[in-house]
């Protein structure tokens, strides 16, 4: 088990957004977290990735307790994430966005910059190569030199993936990667996520697009009102009465149009 939370709890004032949640994320698998709006999915991500301090409980990554670690340290350990609303350096080019994504794997400091040490040159080259690699991985090579503010919604999602991948993570957390993406391009994203897993990455995502989840998830965790109400394979979840009632809603095709 790559990541494991035990009794993880996050309260905002009186509201317990995440309530004693135990989840496990398997290495090399795609884990999906689903649940009604306000179930606490994004909050769970925020706590695991160190953006919010947890109220209670622990997060263990690769056997190490990372509960108290700050966001940047969590990233260094190999946990990357994207946000529910895309978050990129809008006024920079895609390339620059991605290059700096690799910064945490480099060590050059001011001294290196001043003396233009071999290390700096090596690392600058490595960052650029890494950027080119992940951009081609997500299929954005053509857009590399455009400003982020100029590219399409879907390209931005890919760029966000690329930035996350440039950090050389072991696991990526994706918060609603397909929101606002049309069916055609959703397929592209699915393929991309598969490709990530094929490249030894572990993926954990939140999504409301059921068709997509059922297609790619190896394991699904269902949250409701902060609590884990079910987990299992897509088939198990699809047929779980509690989940249907709380979330899926009678299997009506409208709800799950694609």
């Amino acid at each position, binding site marked *: 088990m790559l990541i494991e939370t035990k009794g993880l709890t996050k309260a905002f004032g009186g509201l317990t957004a995440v309530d004693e949640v135990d989840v496990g994320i398997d290495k090399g698998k795609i884990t999906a977290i689903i649940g009604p709006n306000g179930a606490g999915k994004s909050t769970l991500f925020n706590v695991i990735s160190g953006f919010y301090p947890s109220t209670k409980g622990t997060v263990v990554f690769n056997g190490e307790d990372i509960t108290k670690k700050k966001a940047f340290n969590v990233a260094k350990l190999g946990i990357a994430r994207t946000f529910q609303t895309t978050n990129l350096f809008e006024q920079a080019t895609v390339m620059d966005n991605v290059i700096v994504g690799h910064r945490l794997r480099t060590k050059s400091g001011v001294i290196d910059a001043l003396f233009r040490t071999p290390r700096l040159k090596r690392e600058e080259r490595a960052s650029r190569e890494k950027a080119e690699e992940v951009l081609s991985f997500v299929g954005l090579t053509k857009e590399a030199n455009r400003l982020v503010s100029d590219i399409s919604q879907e390209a931005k999602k890919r760029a966000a993936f690329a930035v996350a991948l440039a950090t050389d993570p072991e696991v990526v957390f994706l918060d609603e990667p397909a929101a606002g993406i049309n069916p055609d391009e959703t397929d592209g994203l699915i393929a991309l996520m598969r490709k990530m897993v094929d490249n030894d990455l572990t993926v954990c995502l939140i999504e409301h697009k059921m068709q997509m989840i059922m297609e790619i998830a190896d394991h699904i965790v269902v949250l409701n009102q902060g609590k884990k109400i079910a987990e299992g394979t897509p088939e198990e979840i699809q047929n779980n009465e509690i989940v249907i009632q709380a979330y899926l*809603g009678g299997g009506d095709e*409208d709800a799950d149009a694609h």
Partner: protein
Amino acid sequence: MLTLTDVSVRYGFYEALTDISMKVEPGELVVLLGANGAGKSTIFRTISGLNKPTKGGIEWNGASIGGMSASKLVNAGIGHCPEGRKLFPEMSVYENLKMGSYAVRRNKKEVADTLERVYTLFPILEEKMKASAGSLSGGQQQMLAIGRAMMSRPQLLLLDEPSIGLAPLIVKQVFDVIHEINRGGTTVLLAEQNANAALKIADRGYVIEDGKIVVEGGQDELFANDEVRKAYIGA
């Protein structure tokens, strides 16, 4: 009721819309389909006055409104639930809804009724009445945005991807409500990625590609159109 004639819009050098002509008749529910970046939101923003057309004319109830300010258009009966929600993050849910009724604030009775309706539709909003909008979850915020747009009781309601980020159960509910609002006499213009669900309740639709209208027709025609099926509904 709403007519766009040869409307073009540019962002700097980039032309996002080219010669768009479309029509929405009273009481209709018209859906806009199109890939990401096709220009759907830009159409909405132009109708509601957030963007100015660089060319062409927009007519609303017989009067020309191209280039009119957004605040005036709300008073003229156009409500817009925008992409990106654009809530007031530090105001409470209730205050957000109340701001939604800014244009019709004098009509206290009607405001209270509409508020009641929004609460029935999204009970979570009533529950979270006092919470700040910024603290809501993504989906809850989307519900608030829809609710706020309803508050001005517009004649024409522009809904830009209202189902984004909503749980399947709620998506179904939202489409039901849109349908119902429409049957209640409100004209609706709807942009959706969830083309299947949208088309089901629509009277007519337009398909946009690269800022141009490429297909238009009634519900049946669009359902029957192979291209449309393939691109937006899934084979």
